[in-house]
């Protein structure tokens, strides 16, 4: 008993400081990390910044034991250690929350936590775990219902489950890979306060993000990677957003884009009283109607899970419409096949990019024509035209700066942001009449975000219309001509973006005000 007590203490003490020394790693001869040094001490939050494909995830996967470095070493409290696999890194007190959660959807919170926890007893596992979860929620001020099933949780709640899992396993160092990309602004606030609490209790955190505001807000120190090398580091109190962006991209980044006023053109999309069910067969959209015109961007603002995904999928033909009509340029496309709708000029950047947007085991060039492979350009009646396909892929890769060493690589080897760039490039390259874009800047670095926003405005200028789903209100106000606020499958308001009444947008998103 005594020895156990002692042991517990020694574990809490385990990591005081961690150093990664001249770490290098390459994939098939292409360097992803070169000579990287990083150190962190207890009670510190270190931000890791860098363009898409700079090597952030790779570096963290090395620390977590998923990859082995080609050279370099890792020290904990001054002693060199080897981390051969995640189990070893967990036993050293390192925890990681991946960008795509790895929870089992049909199990409850408790069950998911019990699965990953080593001390789970064989009999009545839930009782012991429930106690622990309760303890931790109190300690760090989490709010979580342990008996809910994972599919009932929002992204933010799922993330909390992942964090509890890591903490229960004794993580003193927590790695968060782009934790905020999928969160609503309120969830981000909650996450930040949780992280602050952890910091106060002596935990150390490595925080990867593309959102400079967050980095400035919670990190003590920032390390910037560029093309696999360290481009610089700074204490957040001595630096600002602009210089961080410059360090990262190597040039100045424009954060605010001015959109010119354009008169709206002909009607492109009309949605008339549609009703749609969600995944579980319950109504997700309730009599939604709106119109969208040429040269116009309509933003749909709202807390995620209020019908945005269902709306995008209904328009693009992935989800059946129970009643009502969708028309493109006067042509009825209600419940037509996704291909037919695409051929009518509707492109779609899906919300769940890994699930819908790509076939991960196929090559980059295969994925670059996922929706267009049937077009005359890319295939005759029977055969694919691989020459043209590869040229087209090269164009996308160059234009959207997808960082990859070759187009003959499998898409699963791309970094998260680069997958997103490939999907975006594919969907906007054809000058669609209507672009349905869900969180298009999700996972993009600042440079790519700037490029994409300009590109969307350019599409608008050329006569396309865009239906933009985003939780980033700043983005919505910056790009959109009109804004619709969605709550519980209904539009609370559809207003011009300079309308005074939008100062109550928070109330509308919460469902307590309707115009």
């Amino acid at each position, binding site marked *: 008993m005594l020895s156990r007590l002692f042991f517990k203490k020694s574990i809490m003490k385990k990591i005081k400081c961690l150093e990664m020394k001249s770490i290098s790693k390459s994939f098939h001869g292409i360097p992803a990390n070169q000579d990287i040094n990083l150190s962190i001490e207890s009670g510190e939050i270190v931000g890791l910044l860098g363009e898409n494909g700079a090597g952030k995830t790779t570096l963290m996967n090395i620390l977590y034991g998923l990859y082995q470095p080609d050279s370099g070493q890792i020290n904990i409290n001054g002693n060199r250690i080897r981390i051969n696999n995640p189990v070893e890194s967990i036993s050293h007190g390192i925890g990681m929350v991946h960008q795509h959660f790895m929870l089992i959807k049909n199990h409850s919170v408790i069950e998911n936590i019990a699965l990953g926890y080593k*001390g789970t007893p064989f009999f009545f596992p839930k009782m012991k775990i429930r106690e*622990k979860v309760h303890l931790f929620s109190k300690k760090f001020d989490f709010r979580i219902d342990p008996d809910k099933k994972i599919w009932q949780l929002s992204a933010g709640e799922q993330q909390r489950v992942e964090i509890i899992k890591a903490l229960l396993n004794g993580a003193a160092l927590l790695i968060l890979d782009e934790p905020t990309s999928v969160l609503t602004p309120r969830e981000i606030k909650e996450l930040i306060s949780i992280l602050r609490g952890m910091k106060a209790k002596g935990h150390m955190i490595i925080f990867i993000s593309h959102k400079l505001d967050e980095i400035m807000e919670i990190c003590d120190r920032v390390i910037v990677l560029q093309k696999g090398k360290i481009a610089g580091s700074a204490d957040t109190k001595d630096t600002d957003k602009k210089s961080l962006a410059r360090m990262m991209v190597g040039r100045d980044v424009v954060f605010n884009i001015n959109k010119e006023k354009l008169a709206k053109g002909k009607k492109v999309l009309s949605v008339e009283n549609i009703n749609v069910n969600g995944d579980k067969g319950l109504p997700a959209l309730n009599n939604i109607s709106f119109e969208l015109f040429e040269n116009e961007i309509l933003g749909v603002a709202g807390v995620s899970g209020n019908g945005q995904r269902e709306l995008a999928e209904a328009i693009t033909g992935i989800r059946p419409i129970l009643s009502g009509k969708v028309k493109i340029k006067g042509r009825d496309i209600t419940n037509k096949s996704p291909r037919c709708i695409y051929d009518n000029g509707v492109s779609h950047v899906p919300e769940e990019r890994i699930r819908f947007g790509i076939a991960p085991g196929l090559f980059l060039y295969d994925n670059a024509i996922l929706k267009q*492979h049937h077009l005359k350009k890319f295939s005759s009646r029977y055969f694919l035209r691989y020459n043209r396909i590869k040229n087209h892929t090269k164009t996308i890769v160059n234009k959207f700066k997808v960082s990859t060493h070759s187009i003959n690589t499998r898409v699963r080897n791309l970094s998260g942001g680069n997958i997103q760039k490939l999907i975006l490039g594919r969907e906007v390259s054809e000058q669609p009449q209507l672009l349905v874009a869900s969180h298009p800047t999700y996972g993009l670095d600042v440079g790519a975000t700037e490029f994409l926003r300009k590109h969307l405005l350019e599409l608008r200028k050329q006569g396309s219309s865009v239906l933009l789903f985003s939780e980033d209100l700043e983005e919505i106000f910056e790009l959109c001509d009109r804004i619709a606020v969605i709550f519980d499958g209904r539009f609370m308001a559809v207003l011009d973006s300079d309308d005074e009444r939008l100062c109550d947008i928070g109330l509308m998103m919460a469902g307590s005000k309707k115009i």
Partner: protein
Amino acid sequence: MIKIKTTNRYDITPFRSFMTIVLSLFAALMVISIIFLIVGVNPIYAITEIFSGSFGSVYGFKETVTKAIPLILIGTGLTLAFRAKFWNIGAEGQLLMGAIFATWAGLHFGQKLPPVLIVPLIFLAGFIGGAFWGIIPAILKIKYSINEVISTLMLNYICAEFLTMLIVGPWKGKARFGFPGTNNLPDSAILGLIPGSRIHYATLTLALIFAVVLCVIIYKTRFGYETRVVGENPDAGKYAGINFLKTTLILMAVSGGLAGVAGVGEVAGIHHYLGYPASISSGYGFTAIIVAWLAKLNPVYTIISGLFFAGILVGGDAIQISLGLPAATVDIVNGTLLIFLIMGDYFLNHKIFIQFSNKSRI
């Protein structure tokens, strides 16, 4: 306490996948050796005997090629279905249905038509028969979400019983003197053999052509592309506007059709009449699953893996005679190989490590 943990492997090189196959085969041979030891046979002798029986003599090799014909045909078709993650384990039934259709065509038109017409006709009939039996589970899966593993498996039995019913009932031939079986096919419908062997060259040629053509289909055509996308990620297939029903129907028509063609070869090339299911096909439809798997779902490689497994079938017959082992020996060998190949795949895609720990935490 010892715990075994797994994580996904992210760095798979061609060398590594090649070595996985080699090691899996080696490990399987080790287990097979142990089984031989248990029944009191010198494993080295038995395994050498298998391969010298099939590849070591001219006679053996001819037999090996003969048995490779249906394996290559069916294996090729299965690569297509498995690419789309449609687990067709009903090739046995599709083969039999092909044999039934071909026999019908042969008996009905054989007297009236010259060989130049009748041979293509029975091949076509066989293809249609296999395709017909293949698209039933496709429709069941897409329209009614019925698991294809179960439906294809069950359709095997239905087809086998249907065939038996035909040969003991309405199709029973006078020339069989009361034994079950149809009359012999007319001479015009019998496939030519390479002299001194049982190799029906028309079917062999078809098998080789189909292996190459299917390779082109999978990698170069729109249909092959759609098949690969559906197999890789069905949700992306839906998003890309791929018509699942159409794609699945076509691929199962081809997969079943090729098994049907194999059935034609067995009836018109080897037996010359339709007899009991077990005599028409000695489990080719199941062995071909391993053939397709060993070929890494590449149709052209089924030529090699088909020959390999045909060799084991022939060599198995040889040791059955020379060592007095039961006929099931070959099934044990094949089953062991399949298990190890599939396990090999798992080890290729996952890292496995063993953890020793005596700690408990927090």
